[in-house]
Every structure is written in structure tokens, then in C-alpha cells.
């Protein structure tokens, strides 16, 4: 049976989406992330209610749990990539879809399609909750600022997910990938902040959703931050694809 190249691509994308949607841990990860995010936002909100006038604005409170939230999305990316390697699924996948580069690219595309709505819903719910609780207590925000911050946060989470998926595809084992990424995002990076220039994926990406009003800390504009993070993610995905093409499965 001969299928045109475009049809083939769409079929691969559908297959990858199907596989992602039916992974048992994906939905658990998203749901747990959502619940933890709400709990943390509640904690941040009540902390900033106690602080009173000095409290950060609605947006900053609503997005304060971003640094925890990204853990959920790191897990999502790693799961998507490493699930191929638990059991012999990778051999089935490659028997059915022998075009490796296209297959891995479509996997990342499918992951993006799932991550964008999930990330948007999560960040928006946090900001909505903070807005509801802090109404009248904190300075108001302009609608376009909210939209900009939400888009930035969604983009940040999506690119982080892609980056983790690429690392997962490179390492092929869930736990080491998880340790390395969490170790970087939660230990090395906060610890070395201020020592290193802000060109690393998380430090640059933070400027995508931080409000420009936080003083001289803002070295990068949101667009610059997004660009740097995008370079990181895209080049890691490219490396993953190249390695995947030449490696023994």
C-alpha cells in the first residue's frame, strides 16, 4: 500500500497522540500536578494576604507556584519519552514506523499538542484563584498583562516539557533523567542564581512570565527569554533526533 508523504505524517502524529493519551501515568501526572498547584497557590495566596499592603500583585501570587509546577511538566515530558523503553515497545514502534527522525519529531509535536492546553488551564486556574481571593487587597492588573503572563507561562511550561522529553529520549531511563532534570531545576539552578548569567533554560525562561515591574532583575524581555529557551529546547530535540537515528534501539 503506498501512502503519500503528507498522509503518512498525519498518521504518525495520530498514532503518537493515541499512545500519549492512553499512557496510564500521563493523566495521573497532570491531575496530581493540578491539585498540588491549587494547594500551593492557596498557600501562597494566604501568605500574601497576611503580608497585607506589601503583598505582591495578583499575577505574581497566581504564578508563584510556577517553580513547583514545572516539576509536573518535567515528569510529563520524561514519561512520554521513556515509556517507549519500558518493555520492548520501542521495537514495535520502529517496526511499524521505520522513519525514525519523523517518528520522534511527531512524538514531540504530539506532546506539545497535549501540553499547551494543560499548561494553559493550570496557570489560568492559579491566576483566577489568586484574583478571586486577593480581590480588593492587591493592586489590580490590566487584562493585557494577564494574557501576556499566561501566554508566557504556558509557553515556558511547554518548552520545558519538550526539553525534558528530549533529555528523556537521550537517556532512555526514567529515574536518571528525572534526577538530572530535577537536580538542575531545583538544586543547582536556584543555588547558583546570581553566579551564572541568565542564559540557561530556566533562568531565561522565567522572564517569559515575570512581570516587567520587578525592578532591575529584569535583564531580558519576555521575547528574548522565550527565544533563548526555545533555542535550548529545539537544539536538545534536534540532538535527541540525531542520536536516535544513529543509535541501536
Amino acid at each position: 500500500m503506498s501512502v503519500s508523504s503528507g498522509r503518512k505524517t498525519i498518521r504518525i502524529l495520530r498514532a503518537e497522540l493515541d499512545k500519549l493519551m492512553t499512557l496510564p501515568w500521563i493523566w495521573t501526572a497532570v491531575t496530581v500536578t493540578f491539585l498540588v498547584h491549587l494547594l500551593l497557590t492557596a498557600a501562597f495566596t494566604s501568605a500574601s494576604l497576611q503580608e497585607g499592603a506589601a503583598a505582591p500583585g495578583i499575577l505574581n501570587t497566581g504564578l508563584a507556584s510556577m517553580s513547583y509546577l514545572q516539576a509536573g511538566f518535567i515528569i510529563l515530558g520524561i514519561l512520554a519519552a521513556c515509556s517507549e523503553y519500558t518493555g520492548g515497545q520501542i521495537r514495535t514502534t520502529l517496526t511499524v514506523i521505520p522513519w525514525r527522525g519523523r517518528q520522534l519529531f511527531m512524538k514531540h509535536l504530539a506532546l506539545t499538542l497535549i501540553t499547551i492546553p494543560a499548561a494553559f488551564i493550570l496557570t489560568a486556574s492559579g491566576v483566577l484563584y489568586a484574583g478571586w481571593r486577593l480581590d480588593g487587597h492587591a493592586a489590580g492588573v490590566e487584562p493585557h498583562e494577564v494574557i501576556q503572563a499566561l501566554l508566557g507561562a504556558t509557553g515556558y511550561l511547554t518548552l520545558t516539557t519538550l526539553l525534558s522529553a528530549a533529555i528523556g529520549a537521550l537517556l532512555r531511563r526514567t529515574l536518571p533523567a528525572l534526577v538530572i532534570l530535577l537536580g538542575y531545576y531545583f538544586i543547582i539552578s536556584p543555588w547558583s542564581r546570581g553566579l551564572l548569567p541568565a542564559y540557561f533554560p530556566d533562568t531565561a525562561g522565567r522572564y517569559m512570565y515575570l512581570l516587567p515591574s520587578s525592578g532591575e532583575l529584569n535583564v531580558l524581555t519576555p521575547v528574548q527569554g522565550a527565544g533563548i529557551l526555545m533555542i535550548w529546547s529545539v537544539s536538545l530535540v534536534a540532538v535527541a533526533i540525531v542520536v536516535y537515528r544513529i543509535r541501536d534501539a
Partner: protein
Amino acid sequence: MKAFHAEISKLLSLPGIWLALLIGALAPAVIAALDAIAEKEAIIAGVSTRLPEMGYSGLGLGVQGVIILGVLAVSSEYRTESSEGAGGQQISTSLMVVSSRLQLFLAKAGAVSVISILLCILAVILIVPTTRYILGDYAPLLEWTRLAGAVCYWTFTALLAFGLTLLTKQGMIPLTMLMINSSLVSFSVLLAKVTKLAFYLPDRAGMEMFMFTKNSASTEVTGSLFDSYHTPFTGGLIMFAWVAVLLGIAAIVFHRRDVAA
């Protein structure tokens, strides 16, 4: 004793264990070195505030290594092998060889504790010359009680990771939770802003065994939250109580659970 031996050799031959040993042994010294360099500039500038904390912050973060150790020790048993390997789990083999579940549990917990104690001692041995070399005459004497506290903290954390993983049967959830929680953006520190009860959480209480001297100065990241709340001894007791309760629950669950479930 044979079971204990077997657990040690199983643990040391795990595929991911090098990461745990590397982080546990080297990370504290590296962090202590960077910390000491920053502190030396502060001393020369005359604004030194954190001298008594030197070296210990590395121990607080290097605990990641034993978290990985504790998680891997259990999650490797429950990892399902590929379908070519008949989809088996190592736990069924382990239980066939050591048929008493309590004995297996104790042997495993013992192996995890012994390795984390050794790892912590190794980390301390590496930290002492590092700070001494960088800080020279300024280097504070590391007190034995606080070092012993750090060893306890590492062992208890490894056992917490072990117990949690035994309950969840897979490594991702406990690993994520504990790794984030022992970082600078820990949940417990956040919760301590909201309620005083957070000071009784295991990591927050356990840290006080070695981390907080009176009037310890704040860093810009953590703020003044890192003041001591318990004495080192009560901190250790609180953490030990958490470990005992968690291991008790884990032992009961492990004893009663169907292997395949």
C-alpha cells in the same frame, strides 16, 4: 546476615546507583567549596555573617544522593522487566530466596542505612579539607555533635525515601517529592510561612540537627525563615518519630500485600 549481604551487593550493583553515590559524595564538597569562596570574599569585605554555617549547607543539599539511594533500593525491586524477560519483577525472586518478608524488609532497610552512613562520612571527610583549604585560618572547627546530626539526617532521609517508595511501589512520586522538598524551594519552608505546624515536618525538624545555629543569618533566597525552632535533639527526635511511624506502616503494608498487586 546473609540477606543483609545480599541486599548490599544488590544495592551497589544497581544501574543508577553511581548517580546516587556521585551526588552524595561529591556534591556536598563542591557546594561547600563554592560557599566557602563566597564567604571568603565576605570575610575580606568585613561583612561575614555565615561563618558557623560553612560546610553544612553542602550537607543539607547533598542529601539528594541518599534520597536517590533509598528510592532506587525499592523501585528497582518493583520495576517490571520487558516482555522478553517474561515481564517479571525482581521482588518475586527476592521473596522466593528470603521468604520472611520482615527479614527482607529489615535487611534492605539496614543496607540502605549503612550505605547512607558511609556516604555521609565520606562527604564529611571531603568537606573538611575543602573548607580548610579555601578559608585557611578562618575555617571554623566542625563540631562532632553537629556532624553526627548530619549523619542522622542523611540516614533518616534515606529511610524516609525507602519507606515512601515501598508504599508507592514506584520511584517517581517519592523521588520528585523528596528532591524538591530538600531543595532551597522546599514545600516545608513555604508552609512554615502559613502555619507553625510546618516546623514539625520531618525535613524541617531534622535539618535543625545540624543546620541552624542561634541567630544564624539569612541568605537572600531563604530569608529569615531559617531560624532555629527546636533544639538539635528535639529536632532529631521529631524526625526519628516520623521515620519510625513511616517504616512501621511500610512494614505492615509490605508484610500483608500480595506480591503481584
